[in-house]
């Protein structure tokens, strides 16, 4: 369904002829995304990897262009879906009366403010790009767990926000300072100090008065359902160790000159109860750059760059309840102290570190850890995975959730629908030195196998039900009207308030709500 000529022309006048396309080929390609098959199936559609086909794809180059595009959408009653690096079904239109606003051309790193420890970025700056530029100042950014190739702006404003380094770099949503936001009406709003009429700057995004960051997003973001974020200031952190980042060899057999002041510990806690004790103790010491629990098979995966390599790490996969801790330091003193803390904990807890003893990772692991490339290892077994669950509160609930999920997951493993991780496949991390925790259950499936796709969808639904009925926290994927109406009544009727926000900020219902909430319950 292409745009009418006159409407097309209006959009074209904003971005120029090379930056809009409503041809069948381009628009169809934009209808494809990872996990669309089982998301479609969950919505009682055919398990196709394609979503609704957008009417057109448009590539703005500036905030003003985005605003004009959205105003036109309002004028013509056409919905929009914005995307940055575009990974995942959340980027897909939920209706064919929709254009995709691909923010790829908005890729400026506006500034790195060394003194005030933040960076201002546009949507198409990738995590790796931001990190390497921050490193030049001895600084680091919080990298989205999805990997260094995705957009930190999207993570900060619109998506989820965990990362492997969350114990030391927190959560994307909590690292947000100033924000530039094109509302669903096309009005541009600037949050915090960047909204000052005189001498605006990016160092703070709250107020005056209440912080509209609370409307912008929650634990997860609004996935373009509340407008388009065109610039954001994100907090920077000290780079955890020496910034010397020397890769050797050729892809895929990269070596890495391990920088000074980096040490990995992997320990098998054997039980979830003991894991909780260990994790809390380690976190209270405020020493870890990374502190994660993965299942044995997950652990083997982060140390493997191929399925063959993974098979060779069967011993790691046999660990019952492993914890992975990476400590980093800036000086000899700091490094010595942190190692001493770990030595003491290991002794006190009577636990064994296998690193350097029964197992030593390839040096490239450290490069991937520093660059947050580890999440991508989830793809090496079946070709695709998606996480169920995704709640966040204490370590205790994360581990209870992990335990309670095992029998459910085993049902689907036995049916051959999802990959066999003994039901224990999980990634759990602490945040802010253990002030809260999050767990998700990466689940492997094969997107080319219908049985697997359908099984995955059914497992996701069952897992959501488990979280709901057993009070294990709200999963990541409580988004979209159907899910909100399922969970809302059990959660302070939040869906009613979220809907009011949608109605107030998007009076013409122009921002695609497929992964947010529709203004009317029957839509």
């Amino acid at each position, binding site marked *: 369904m292409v745009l009418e000529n006159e409407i097309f022309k209006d959009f074209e006048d904003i971005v120029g002829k090379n930056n809009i396309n409503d041809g069948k080929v381009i628009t169809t390609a934009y209808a494809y995304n990872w996990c669309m098959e089982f998301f479609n199936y969950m919505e009682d559609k055919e398990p196709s990897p394609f979503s609704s086909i957008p009417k057109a794809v448009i*590539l703005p180059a500036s905030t003003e262009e985005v605003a004009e595009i959205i105003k036109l959408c309002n004028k013509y009653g056409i919905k929009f879906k914005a995307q940055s690096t575009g990974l995942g079904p959340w980027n897909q239109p939920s209706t064919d009366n929709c254009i995709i606003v691909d923010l790829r051309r908005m890729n400026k790193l506006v500034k790195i403010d060394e003194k005030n420890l933040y960076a201002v970025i546009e949507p198409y700056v*990738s995590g790796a790009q931001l990190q390497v530029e921050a490193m030049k100042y001895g600084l680091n950014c919080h990298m989205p767990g999805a990997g260094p190739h995705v957009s930190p702006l999207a993570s900060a404003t619109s998506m989820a926000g965990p990362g492997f380094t969350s114990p030391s770099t927190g959560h994307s949503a909590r690292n947000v300072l100033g924000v530039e936001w094109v509302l669903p009406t096309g009005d541009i709003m600037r949050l915090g100090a960047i909204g000052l009429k005189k001498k605006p700057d990016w160092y703070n995004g709250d107020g005056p008065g209440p912080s509209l960051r609370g409307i912008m997003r929650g634990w997860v973001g609004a996935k373009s359902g509340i407008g388009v974020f065109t610039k954001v200031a994100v907090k920077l952190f000290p780079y955890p160790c020496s910034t010397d980042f020397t890769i050797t060899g050729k892809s895929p057999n990269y070596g890495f000159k391990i920088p000074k002041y980096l040490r990995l510990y992997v320990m098998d806690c054997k039980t979830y109860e003991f894991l909780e004790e260990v994790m809390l103790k380690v976190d209270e010491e405020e020493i870890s750059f990374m502190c994660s629990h993965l299942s044995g098979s997950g652990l083997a995966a982060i140390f493997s760059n191929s399925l063959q390599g993974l098979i060779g790490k069967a011993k790691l996969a046999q660990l019952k309840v492993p914890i992975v801790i990476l400590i980093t330091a800036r000086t000899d003193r700091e490094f010595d102290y942190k190692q001493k803390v770990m030595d003491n904990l290991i002794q006190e807890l009577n636990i064994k570190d296998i690193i350097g003893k029964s197992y030593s990772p390839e040096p490239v692991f450290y490069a991937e850890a520093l660059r947050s490339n580890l999440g991508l290892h989830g793809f090496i077994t079946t070709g695709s995975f998606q996480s169920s669950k995704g709640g966040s509160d204490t370590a205790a609930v994360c581990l209870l959730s992990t335990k309670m999920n095992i029998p459910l997951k085993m049902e689907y493993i036995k049916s*051959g629908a999802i990959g*066999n991780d003994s039901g224990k496949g999980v990634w759990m991390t602490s945040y802010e030195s253990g002030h809260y925790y999050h767990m998700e259950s990466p689940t492997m499936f094969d997107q080319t*196998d219908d049985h697997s796709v359908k099984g995955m969808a059914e497992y996701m639904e069952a897992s959501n039900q488990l979280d709901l009925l057993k009070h294990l926290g709200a999963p990541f994927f409580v988004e979209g009207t159907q899910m909100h109406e399922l969970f809302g009544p059990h959660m302070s009727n939040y869906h009613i308030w979220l809907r009011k926000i949608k109605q107030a900020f998007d009076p013409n219902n122009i921002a695609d709500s497929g992964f947010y909430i529709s203004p009317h319950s029957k839509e």
Partner: protein
Amino acid sequence: MMDDEEYKHLIRRCIRCSICKWIPQLQIKSKKYATICPAIDMYNFHPYSGGGKIILALALEMEKIKPSEELRDIVYKCTECGGCDVSCKFLNNLEPLEIIIKLREKLVDLGYGPMPKQQQYIDSVKKNNNPYNEPHENRLNWLPEDINIDPNAQVLYFVGCTSSYRRKEMAIAACRVLNAAGVPFNILDNEEYCCGSPVFRTGDINTFKDFMNKNVDAIEAKNIKKVVFSCAGCYDTFKVHYPLYRNYNFEVKHSVEFFNELIENGKLLLTKKVPLTVTYHDPCHLGRNAEPYKEWKGKVVNLMPLISIHVPPKPKRCGTDGVYESPRELLKKIPELKFIEMERIKEYSYCCGAGAGVKSAFPEFALHTAKNRIQEAEDTGAQVITSSCPFCSTNLQDAIHESDSLLKYYDINELLMMAIGITDEKLKEFLGEVA
């Protein structure tokens, strides 16, 4: 290369992660030079990327889209540089480059490929044995009289169409260096034909095989032991693609490999100072794409539901074994030459923009890409950018000209000539003489 069944399977496996748009994540050193794909850099819409083209292949297969000129234009706006392939395969098991090649073949079969401009080149290859519409009998016009050719030599210099007709200085330089090293060598005279690369890369496999056979027959008839190329494209075609269809009994070397060995063996003496700061551009055909296919005969073993492995492990062609060190070692051996690297090098080198028919069909795209590369070279502080491929040579020099850059381009063998004592002016003189 993949068969149809594997193609149909793999095109359903793209996760749209866009890693194909970037150099390998661990290699990113700056925001400015983080990207790998010239097509997405130029055209921005996702289908132009490696992953985007996989989606197009799937959409075509699922009949979500029909073959069309719109589709053809996107698919052919690709230099087939293989950068996407390297980045993807750091962790994944997709074959973006082969899928793109196969998709082009499908478009040819459906009557939608190649691009009309490219068709002219292909027609010329068929008619004139070269893509440039030049008479075959003029193929040796570049050859100065004072080059010593030895009809009985066991080393053959395969000149290639582009050096023969368009980048004559490269052919001359290669021959001068061979003479200077005292290596007896032969050339194929009028028996040298287009290597077939242009037809292969646009999907006409039968014509490709004809040219392969003509060349291999001619070389084998002369009892040649070693064939040396200064053209990365011809080298890649001989080394990587001929063996997919026919085995041959001679060794192939790019001149950078051969000359580097000659220097190491003391046969080629570099006595003159070349006090230039030089950066090297890895041609895709000499770098990542020069990695040969390794034959795999094994089986797929189902370990457990959804998880299968290849037994024995199936080699993954990741650009690991391209020719990367020889040109660098060679440059470092030139007295007083200061060698300096660009950010994107070796298996994640940025393409010059000329390959896979792009220069002919989409010259503005080729130039845009080359300008990007020239900027990267300039940022190193180098005075000279060098490479070892006639297509890269032409395109990079066009970009230097168009962007008013102060950089100079020399073929790597021209730098060798300077180090041997044959100055740049002398080279021009030769060219004048030949003209």
